[in-house]
């Protein structure tokens, strides 16, 4: 356990220059600024490496595809050199019995000190026979690996909510991982797939600060899932002005009007696509002319057609109005009083404000030690 991240990266052939560049890129994606980069560098130079076990259940591997294509190739290289060493059945070189041995060795050697990252979910119907890696139901492997984990990351909508395999009628009884892992902190990073910068950001935050980032009541990191697509959408002024695309390829579509009427789920979807965007910040679905399908929301497959416009705006199971799923439910009316309005106003301002280093690092957080 004496090896630091930095030593480990150097062993992988990563130069100090690249290492520092990685630190500043990651600090930028976390909104931490120059001092944050120093803090990340210092942590990675001094802290012993936390191993990561990355399991795959029922899934399509789009999370891995997204992750290894992190905007800057360097980010992927650096983070992969930190995490792929221990166990990842897609990325590791080992095969067959060796693989299962590697998993057991890591669990034993780093008992209570490794992060379990889960891509996909366990189908628990018919004793779990619908997903059998290494000759055993995935649900058993998952519980086994979770037992001695420090914390658990739920990659993507499968692990977080269930996604397509849990859509009606869910023939295999696929369930999100928090239905079978009850006693560990779980960081949900939903999306189909999640944004690569968000994935590397969550891993690096955990590794650097040694704790889970601040989560909302649904278990998502607030720094990336605190606002709706709608809040930061560059087409938002067209929504406000009532300028809508009525049909694809109409004049409004050519003018870049709001896609709400052709099915955009931006007003109910908590994710960072409109702020961080995809492919090195190049674009995101709305920018290429298609509405958001709400892929990071619970049960997005069962919420009606992708091209049907929203008739109700409150996401299932939440009461958020000012961009967080954390607020007290109910309707704000005059009878509720000034205090409630003041709370709503203050929350809205806090959400709308760009995150500062303090917002991200001075969070009173349950420590994961």
């Amino acid at each position, binding site marked *: 356990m004496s090896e630091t991240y930095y030593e480990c990266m150097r062993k992988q052939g990563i130069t100090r220059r690249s290492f520092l560049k990685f630190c500043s890129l990651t600090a930028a994606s976390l909104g931490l600024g120059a001092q944050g980069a120093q803090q990340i560098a210092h942590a990675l130079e001094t802290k012993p490496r936390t191993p990561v076990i990355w399991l795959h259940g029922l899934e399509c591997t789009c999370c891995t595809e997204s992750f290894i294509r992190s905007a800057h190739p360097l980010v992927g290289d650096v983070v992969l050199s930190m995490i792929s060493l221990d166990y990842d059945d897609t990325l590791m070189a080992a095969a067959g019995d060796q693989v299962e041995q590697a998993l057991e060795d890591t669990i034993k050697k780093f008992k209570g000190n490794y992060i379990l990252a889960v891509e996909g979910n366990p189908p628990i119907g018919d004793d779990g026979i619908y997903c059998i890696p290494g000759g055993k139901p995935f649900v058993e492997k998952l519980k086994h690996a979770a037992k001695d984990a420090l914390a658990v990351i739920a990659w993507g909508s499968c692990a977080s909510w269930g996604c397509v395999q849990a859509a009606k009628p869910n023939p295999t009884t696929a369930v999100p991982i928090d239905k079978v892992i009850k006693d560990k902190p779980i960081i949900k990073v939903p999306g189909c797939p999640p944004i690569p910068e968000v994935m590397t950001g969550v891993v690096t935050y955990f590794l650097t600060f040694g704790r889970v980032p601040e989560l909302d009541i649904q278990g998502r990191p607030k720094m990336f899932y605190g606002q709706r697509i709608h809040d930061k959408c560059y087409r938002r002024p067209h929504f*406000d002005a009532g300028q809508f695309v009525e049909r694809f390829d109409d004049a409004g579509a050519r003018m870049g009007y709001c896609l709400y009427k052709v099915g955009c789920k931006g007003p109910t979807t908590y994710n960072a696509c409109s702020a961080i965007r995809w492919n090195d910040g190049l674009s995101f679905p709305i920018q290429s002319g298609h509405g958001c399908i709400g892929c990071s929301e619970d049960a997005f497959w069962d919420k009606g057609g992708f091209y049907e416009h929203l008739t109700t705006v409150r996401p299932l199971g939440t009461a958020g109005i000012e961009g967080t799923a954390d607020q007290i439910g109910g309707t704000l009316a005059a009878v509720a009083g000034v205090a409630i309005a003041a709370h709503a106003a203050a929350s809205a301002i806090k959400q709308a404000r760009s995150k500062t280093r303090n917002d991200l690092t001075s969070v009173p957080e349950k420590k994961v030690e």
Partner: protein
Amino acid sequence: MTEPAFASDPTARLEAAYRAIHAERMHGIPIVNPALGVAAVGFADWEGRWLGVLVTPWCMNLMLVPRDPAAWRPLAVGAKRRYALPAGEFEFIGGEDPAIGEYQMCSLFSPMERFGDMETAVLTAKLALEAALAPAQAERQAAEPRPLEKLARAVEAPMSKRDFLRGSFLPGVDRR
């Protein structure tokens, strides 16, 4: 084309424009809250621009509109820029409408389904504007000066080519 800056209070003009949008373009949209109306709340001078909160039955935004033409930096529709308000940095998105002219907005609420009546929505708007203009972060900022941000602001301030080449935006450069 760029609209002329509003020399006088834009409240009436904004309200008229959004009432028309409410009646025409937003007609029949299910996420419009029927309990609410349109109001432009608290528009006042902020560093040469009008800053206030726009309340409509479908959104509540911080809104910047031109006041002093020299202080207004145009922003393309859909482009984003951060402004340092007393409560912190806020990212605004550029917009333009024939009836409104140029403006820049930062979303506070949208949609507006949780507001039961207009009175509460307007009260929330007032309190939100107060919160945005209150230096809640002052002590933090003092404890943690951000030299890069200061530098970025200094570089963006208007200056002559000569000053730029002299590096007048750098702290203490005049002594060289």
